[in-house]
């Protein structure tokens, strides 16, 4: 039997319409140590299935920089899921 991967903890933020959809502004989340941004998102899609519809109209950030979905997570990362921006 394979040993379970160690878990790591990241902070997750939601904004705008997906903050409203999830009802979550900010929380800590546990993911396997080799998880990518896309895995973290999939975890939330499991919890909030409607999130799947937003996948193509979201970007993610890692430590306050826009990040690609295959970026690997590190302990203590601050991850955010960001709808299209509309400031100005």
């Amino acid at each position, binding site marked *: 039997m394979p040993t379970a991967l160690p878990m790591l903890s990241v902070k997750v933020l939601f904004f*705008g319409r997906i903050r409203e959809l999830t009802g979550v502004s900010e929380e800590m989340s546990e993911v396997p140590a080799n998880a990518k941004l896309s895995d973290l998102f999939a975890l939330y899609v499991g919890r909030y299935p409607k999130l799947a519809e937003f996948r193509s109209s979201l970007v993610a950030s890692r430590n306050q920089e*826009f990040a*690609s*979905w*295959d970026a690997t997570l590190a302990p203590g990362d601050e991850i955010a899921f960001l709808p299209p*921006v509309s400031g100005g």
Partner: protein
Amino acid sequence: MSWNMTENLASDKFTLVREPIVIEDVLRFVRADQDGAVVTFDGFVRNESHGRRTEYLDYEAYESMAIGKMHEIGEQLHQKYAIHRIAIVHRLGRLQIGETSVFIAVSAPHRAAAFDACRYAIDTLKRTVPIWKKEYFADGAVWADGELPPVPPSSKTAS
């Protein structure tokens, strides 16, 4: 010329505020005797959106990242244009019709750079700074369409 990039970056202003923006203060901030031109952009709440009468707007931001992205815009402006100072002030919270949501001011010794930089600043802000606007109408509310910021290419090589 008496401006230089190090000095300028230190004296630029990038802020998020929850009170009305005092435009005169921002103008005064960017203006210096070695300049000759200031170009400003004042973005404020229109009374209609897609043909519907707007009642008010709510703005929210990923504040720490938004400030970081506004600083990045400043760095890009100093690299691209011979400008002196930049101020970018964005308001958050509830805004009524006619209230300024964003005010950008750029000073420069010559006007072409000030125009180019001010326009680049607002265009880039609208694409890259994590701020969101919800529009309230008599019969409901919607999140504004917005733009999807450019994201760095995948870190994977094809496999």
